[in-house]
């Protein structure tokens, strides 16, 4: 109480056209909310794994089983293992682990307001604390996935220390890639849960419209569709970087990145201004 507090104003006026103010509030939210986000994630993790002996192992089992099935299909030549550019086991494990990170980023961001409605109804917390908590949570879960990918790279004899280091540095992009559409959809999913259901429905076939677990044959319809699949570019580039220490189609990656950046900023902005409007209705 020693230093005068800044005057906070809550008004009916739309904040959307006071972009400067909102952006300042967003940036300040990020700076002030890292500790809150850390506590939220810590609580979330402890809650998730309490009463479970194997804990995070369960999260890894689902993609590993699917990866195992596809690896088997490739070994038995039921699915072509040609044109992968790396051992089939590494290809499918990286694909599944990265894709799981992407879907987790989307779904956790999209459900953010619903999952936090109890907090939002009673405590005035910065929206950024919730946003960062998603990034932290996916990041935490990804540590195990990165570990699995590292083990498979070494086992398959394709481990490139420099490439893998670059992969780890750029790995957060995968989370951002997923969080961007998730945040944009979060306000709508708060009101209509159908939004979340539709997205979950789309995510499943989207996996097969990208070279996640098999190489899409060139010149086919799927090949054309995979270019517009938002996950394709970041996934193939991160995988190639980790295994071969090289990027694939950098201009296209930058183009996708630009779109993700715009979607992410708009989504974050919308999420920020929608909390006081929607939290009471969630």
């Amino acid at each position, binding site marked *: *109480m020693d230093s*005068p*507090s*800044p*005057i*906070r*104003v*809550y*008004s*009916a*006026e*739309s*904040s*959307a*056209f006071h972009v400067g103010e909102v952006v300042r509030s967003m940036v300040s939210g990020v700076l002030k909310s890292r*500790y*809150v986000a*850390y*506590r*939220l994630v*810590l*609580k979330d993790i*402890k*809650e998730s794994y*309490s*009463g479970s002996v194997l804990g995070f192992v369960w999260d890894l089992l689902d993609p590993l089983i699917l990866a195992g099935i596809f690896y088997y299909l490739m070994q038995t030549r039921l699915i072509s293992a040609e044109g992968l550019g790396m051992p089939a086991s590494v290809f499918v494990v990286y694909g599944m682990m990265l894709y799981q990170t992407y879907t987790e980023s989307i779904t956790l961001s999209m459900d953010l307001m619903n999952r936090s*409605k*109890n*907090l*939002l*109804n*009673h*405590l*005035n*917390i910065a929206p950024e604390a919730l946003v960062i908590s998603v990034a932290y949570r996916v990041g935490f879960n990804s540590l195990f996935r990165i570990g699995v990918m590292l083990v498979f790279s070494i086992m398959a004899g394709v481990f490139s220390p420099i490439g893998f280091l670059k992969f780890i540095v750029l790995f957060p992009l995968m989370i951002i890639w997923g969080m961007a559409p998730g945040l944009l959809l979060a*306000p*709508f999913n*708060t*009101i*209509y849960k159908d939004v979340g259901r539709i997205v979950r429905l789309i995510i499943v076939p989207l996996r097969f419209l990208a070279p996640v677990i098999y190489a899409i044959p060139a010149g086919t319809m799927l090949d054309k569709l995979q270019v517009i699949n938002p996950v394709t570019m970041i996934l193939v580039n991160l995988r190639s970087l980790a295994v071969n220490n090289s990027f694939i189609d950098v201009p296209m990656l930058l183009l996708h990145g630009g779109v993700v950046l715009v979607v992410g900023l708009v989504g974050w902005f*919308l999420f920020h*201004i*929608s909390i*006081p*409007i*929607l*939290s*009471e*209705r*969630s």
Partner: protein
Amino acid sequence: MSEPIIRIEQVSKKYSRNAQQHLSYGIVDLLREVMGRKQEGLRKDEFYAVNDVSLEIVPGECLALIGRNGSGKTTLLKMLNGLVKPDRGKISIAGRVQALINLGAGFSPRLTGRENIFNSASLMGMSRRETNEVLGAIIAFSELELFIDSPVGTYSSGMKARLGFSVAIHLEPDILLIDEVLSVGDYAFQNKCFTRMEELKKKGVTIVFVSHSHASVIKLCEKAIWLHEGKIHAMGPSLETVQTYLKSMEEEDKRRHLGDGTHSLPEKQVDEPVVAVEDEIDDDPELQLGVSEPKVPEAEYVLPAEQESFVLSGWYKASSEKDVTLLVNGSPATITKVERLDVLDKFPDAPLIMGFKGTEHRETLGARNEVVLQVGGETMWKKIVLVDTPKNNQPGEARDSIYGPVYPASSDVDQIECRILVNGEETTTVPIHSAVTIQFSFRLKREVQGLASTLNFHRKDGLKVAAIASLTDRRLNHIRTGHVYCDVHIADFDFLPGPYVIAMPIAEGRSYLWRDVALEFYVEGQGQLYWGIKDIQHSYEIRVEEA
């Protein structure tokens, strides 16, 4: 006069009566927000929860918000905390705000008390270092030293509230917003909380206090605002405002119990269940209980005994859909239905109204049963349900009621009448401290020996307040037969305002000839505050000696 620390300018907030519509309007409002367009006026099914409220609060002031459920108190408090965006007007706040709207919001039952302190403190804006600095004080204040490393899920609701309050109170904010959260915990802890709040007041902390405890409002706050249907109905010194509010509530209560006329008596309650627990929301305002108001006095209900099984239904305000358990005498009843009720118009402060239905078989119930509603493991409310003994439909047969045994028909006595007179006029509304005459009469149809009668005064909820018995000096003993007329004069009728009944037995020795509710009436107050069950006339002398 110093600059206001809180300035509220023509603030309004509207909600929809239709839950689905309320959600749909959310998307429309969001799109309008993005396009910078304002939604003026009310849309279909909308109403104002807070309507054109303006006020200023200066630093160090303690302001109470009083009013009925749904009057807009919590909505206003949430707008002050930035949780809800106003639909009109502006709120300016020049200070660090701490809200105690739901103690323990964000507590995780799986984590220990200590871990939850760090979580809760971080959500309230404290850093790890700041939390570490006050950790000892928080634990000491909560008096939970022995349990601080146990999971919060093992705590009672009172312990959780103590922990929540302790964390919140150690933030030392400029403005403290409190929403009916101090009614939790034991009296010693409540007292400790109020002492702490007095300390904060002395330090210049501004307090906005929502409470249904009028004594707390008067003790803590200098000023009060009475909100009614979202508008400021009265504003002024807390004592006067509370008195005005209580007077109005009393009038309303009186109208509800006695109707507009003063001559017609309500039906005798012992012939009907006081409240069927089956009642729906509209018929049972007593069931307005829930997460935001967990501490509601126990209420008693009487169930008819003829049924094989009972439907126990009710509702509660909730912040989210959680597991519901209905315990009858400690054992879980079968919950047959839990649903979201479309009654948000009645309770705009509530994010969610959940209804539930459970069944219980007659044989599992005793005469007095404790029914406890638990939501998400927390006790929301407790009710006492009384079960009538079965009627056998034979006239003159006895049965129990909350006012004692009932012998409604008799072949020995008839033409039973009872009325109450104030200033010689028959009435069912008695001003407190007035001189009252109770006239009762009956005709004996046969010769009796040892005639006796008693006026048993019960509060309508069943509590016996007083009795005037002829047995004390056997004043009716000499009467054998005929039409008996009695006038009982009471010089100062000092029962506290509220509804009452007179249960009257007419007996021959120890054997009842007739016993039933003879009269219902309402005592009205004089706009003052009352505690207890009687208002003792007194004088007050004060002497202070030098220490």
